[in-house]
């Protein structure tokens, strides 16, 4: 059953930046503020100290999205009550405007593998993921967003395509979609499918946020292209092109520049944000022209 959205906090909008500890000072000093900041839940699950103090200062002037990377909603067992309570406490502490997680799993109970691992898209997986999302939405008292994954391989047991599986997850749990455009590009390269077709098959009306990031392009031992979801560079051209398409289909939604390793100076992120905002403006103008 869909959980109700939190009434008190406005939804996320505009163009945001993923906040890393390196940027606390620059983000505080910046006059042109991003429309929102996004942090990883797991970096703030500890009780107190400097990281919380910085985030509290920033929260005064910024909307905030909390993005989980370790709840393992695709995992073999439900998130523990303690894990859920910790996320609830974090979301409440910062009055977060949004909470999102991944369609992935991260290890076994008591064995955290710190990666977003792929799922077989079967009826059994679907029921389990929906249960885990339900439990999370109940515990958090709000609708959450679920991100489409970047994957390197699939399962022969899968009976759903990924977009169909995501469509069912959204329909049954009432969660929203965190549309990661770079993940589509990465998966399209790795699984040799058409990125636009995949995009159009997603439940785009449920999109609550879009992620933009960079990937690395390699080749496997067979010489076939292998894209790795590295988040360590600027958004690449194919991702920008698919973003143009995505934003026309979703209408204005919150967009995040996500850069998690080899983190650049703050102005580089501001520049990436400007490019995203320009694309959104072009899309909106295109809409107006089309409507005549």
């Amino acid at each position, binding site marked *: 059953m869909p959980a109700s959205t939190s009434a008190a906090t406005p939804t996320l909008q505009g163009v945001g930046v993923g906040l890393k500890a390196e940027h606390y000072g620059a983000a505080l000093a910046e006059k042109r503020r991003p429309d929102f900041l996004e942090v990883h839940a797991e970096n703030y699950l*500890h009780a107190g100290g400097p990281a919380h103090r910085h985030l509290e200062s920033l929260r005064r002037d910024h909307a905030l999205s909390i993005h989980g*990377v370790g709840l393992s909603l695709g995992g073999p067992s439900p998130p523990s009550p303690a894990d859920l309570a910790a996320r609830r406490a974090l979301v409440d502490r910062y009055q977060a405007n949004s909470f999102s997680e991944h369609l992935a799993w991260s290890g076994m109970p008591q064995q955290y593998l710190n990666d977003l691992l792929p799922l077989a898209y079967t009826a059994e997986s679907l029921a389990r993921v929906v249960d885990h999302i339900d439990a999370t939405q109940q515990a958090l008292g709000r609708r959450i967003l679920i991100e489409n994954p970047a994957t390197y391989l699939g399962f022969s047991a899968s009976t759903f395509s990924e977009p169909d599986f995501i469509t069912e997850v959204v329909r049954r749990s009432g969660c929203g979609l965190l549309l990661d455009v770079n993940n589509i590009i990465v998966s399209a390269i790795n699984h040799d499918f058409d990125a636009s077709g995949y995009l159009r098959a997603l439940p785009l009306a449920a999109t609550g946020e879009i992620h933009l990031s960079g990937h690395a392009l390699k080749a496997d031992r067979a010489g076939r292209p292998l894209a790795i979801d590295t988040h360590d560079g600027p958004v690449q051209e194919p991702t920008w092109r698919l973003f143009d398409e995505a934003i026309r289909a979703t209408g204005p939604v919150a967009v995040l520049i996500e850069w998690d390793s080899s983190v650049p100076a703050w102005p580089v992120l501001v520049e990436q944000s400007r490019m995203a905002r320009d694309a959104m403006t072009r899309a909106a103008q295109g809409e107006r022209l089309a409507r005549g």
Partner: protein
Amino acid sequence: MRAADYQMFAAALCDADAPVPEGLASPAGTDLADRFAVYRNNVHVSLVESLAASFPITRAHVGEEFFRAMARVHVQAAKPSSARLTLHGEDFPGFISSFEPAASLPWLPDLARLERAWSQSWAAADAPALPITALRTRRPEDLLQVCVCVHPAARLVRSAWPVADLWEAHQAPDANLSTIEWTAQNVLLCRPHADVLLRRVDDAAAGFIAALIAGDTIESAASLVPALDAGSLLQTLFEDGFILEIRS
């Protein structure tokens, strides 16, 4: 996807020599093993990276290459129990003490223990420390009978090695270790204001502080260290925000 499928996938990620699990697929003409290796690599590289972030001083001391090789052996053997990686590495100092290639640096486990304590202090709950003025209402003789509740961010690290000097020297790149005197050092970590504060304390003071942490009265803690000026040490402890409250 069944419980056994998860188990098989996870087990194969953890074992570099394991074959690719059954039931995985990638497009015709691609190398499935290479694709599975991306996940295996992500697991180990990201966990090594997380230890590198949690132990920057240990890393600076032994160098990037040695640290990563050492961390990789640890990560291979012991995965974290939860996603709370800001406190990853609880058992890393213990691992280092049994890591043969590091045996020529017998202080390394203590340096890692200090970093671990620093992380705990950094992450601990915020709480206003008790100001020394709170003692004004008490008669000095009554004060001897009180115990103290220690601030959540307070940690004591006792070492037979100059861990504080090493820690400080490595705050700058290209640390100069030539002036370090290789004597024992104890460190008290507190968070009186925003940031973690590191203070060297001698053996007598460390004994007194350890007794306070263990819940002894001030009198009993002071009796352990007759040579100590407990009054001035207490004043320092108050200034450092070591004391959360006092209990009669």
